[in-house]
């Protein structure tokens, strides 16, 4: 009986790992492809171990296009992502506090508007937004890619509100009796307790923004302001033959920050989504 259970357990783990391997195979294949030469990639070999280990892909890839190296593209991506993520955290926590903890006229109305934007597909407002930025003379800049993130992101506001529900109101009341203003309560009580929710926001917003392709595609036209994702796509657009090895090398590098953040904060992510209770 005990042996039977142990075998069952073993089969379970083997199956889960095998399927998991299939799941991440494309990613592993890309990483191994970054060390293969073009001929081997194009042959469609299943192997994850390169025949001739070719590190040169990284140096040729890194040199980039028309004299602009990938150092620049990665820096651009990083600046946009970091600033937008910072903006999201600050603004979303402020708005969430207003909606969750302050009684004011119009709260219900604005909250409903927020739920509506959560379901509003970005592509519907893509064209008019572009035209407005264009008229303001800001279409070819980082402003359209960053400024909206300082106005709170509905998804994260909602998540933080759910989290704040779990922070006892008695804390606020006690602080008020002690003479704390609402501003002080936000800064000294709510914000520190909100940390798990903030970490979740940082991770998710970071990789959404890092992977974002459509925004940079619309707003950035000068190669020196390109983000990494735009630059990687240029490998495939090249008039001459595509250098797959170099493309995969830069693709691999572009995924490293995402993986790093995921590995460091993995725990928070899985639990953060859990505790934010999307039960609503």
């Amino acid at each position, binding site marked *: 009986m005990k042996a039977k259970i142990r075998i069952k357990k073993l089969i379970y*783990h083997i199956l*889960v*790992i095998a399927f998991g391997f299939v*799941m*991440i195979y*494309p*990613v592993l*294949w*890309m990483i191994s*492809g970054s060390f293969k030469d073009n001929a081997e990639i*194009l*042959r*469609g*070999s299943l192997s994850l171990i390169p025949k001739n280990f070719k590190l040169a892909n990284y140096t040729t890839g890194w040199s980039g296009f028309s004299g602009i190296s990938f150092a620049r593209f990665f820096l651009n991506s990083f600046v946009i992502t970091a600033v937008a993520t910072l903006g999201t955290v600050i*603004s979303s926590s*402020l708005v969430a506090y*207003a*909606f969750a903890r*302050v009684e*004011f006229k*119009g*709260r219900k109305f*604005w909250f409903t*508007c*927020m739920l509506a*934007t959560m*379901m*509003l*597909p970005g*592509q*519907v*407002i*893509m*064209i*008019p*937004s*572009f*035209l*407005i930025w264009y008229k303001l003379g800001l279409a070819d800049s980082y402003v359209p890619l960053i400024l*909206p993130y*300082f*106005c709170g992101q509905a998804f994260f*506001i909602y998540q933080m509100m759910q989290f704040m529900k779990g922070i006892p109101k008695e804390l606020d009341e006690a602080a008020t009796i002690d003479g704390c203003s609402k501003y002080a309560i936000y800064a000294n009580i709510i914000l520190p307790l909100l940390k798990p929710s903030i970490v979740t926001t940082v991770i998710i917003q970071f990789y959404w923004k*890092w*992977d974002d*392709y*459509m925004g940079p595609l619309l707003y950035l036209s000068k190669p020196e302001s390109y983000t990494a994702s735009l630059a990687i*796509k240029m490998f*495939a657009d090249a008039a001459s033959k595509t250098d797959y090895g170099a493309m*995969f090398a830069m*693709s*691999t590098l572009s995924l490293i920050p*995402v993986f790093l953040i*995921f590995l460091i904060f993995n725990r928070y*992510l*899985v639990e953060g989504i*859990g505790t934010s209770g*999307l*039960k*609503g």
Partner: protein
Amino acid sequence: MSKNTEKTSVISRFLNKDQTVGNIFAFPFIFGFVCFSFIPIITSFYYAFTDYSMGSKTATYIGAANFIKLLHDEIFIKSLGITLKYVLISVPLKLAFALLIAFVLTRKSRMVTVYRSLYYVPSLVGGSVAVALVWKQLFARKGLFNSVLAGLGLSTVNWFGDTKLALYPLILMTVWQFGSSMIIFAAGLKEIPTMYYEAARIDGAGAWQMFKSITIPCLSPIILYNLVMQTIQAFMAFTQAFVITGGGPNNGTMMYALNVYNQAFKYNHMGYACAMSWFMLVVMSIITLMIFKSSKFWVFGEGDDE
């Protein structure tokens, strides 16, 4: 008391009123909503009735001409059909996988967290251009999928050369990214009291019966949430089609968002593209509303929290 301190106390009293505090804290959202959602939507509505294109000084009012043109636009109708097909196949499959794997990974084992992370990886990187380019290569004529088919003794398939087949690699790529829905389901599964299952086991219920009669009903609010979010997201899929197929072959993967993008930025038909955006907004609102209306019949315990 000097006049000055009186003045500051008036100001501080004003600043500490709930009404002021609320508006100050909510200001980023109010500003953003007006500038980045409301005004663009209204502008888009206005342009939808004009022949506006970038560079032109004026936009001429042309009534519903854009909308009438939509009905005769073959590519538009095709793109609508393709997008519906994509949504109808990919969303249910994605949610089914997410739920199934979340359920399989509820065992109490230290490895479960590792497994969850493993299955989450595709969601983590799937939206990137990098992975889209890999996908393109995997399904290339001499790509990995064809190598596998050949290895199994089957005939190879020209995935992106066939109008009928080209959509399926894109669907598979979407389903592959079930990880984020899975994590939300996993969080929901943890909330189901184990005594429900214990009681059912005593009554002699099987695994499937427990899944059907306990798990699904308890998770139904989360299923609703995932369904709505994934449907909206799927309707607006862009990067995959843009990077992998560019809409081809013969518009076989012309997703709706890609078509809008082309009309606006490739052909500079801004007015027409706005009309298409508005059409999509109406279609999606109807579908979302239908999902919510239907939820009365299959979502349990709604409003318990409120």
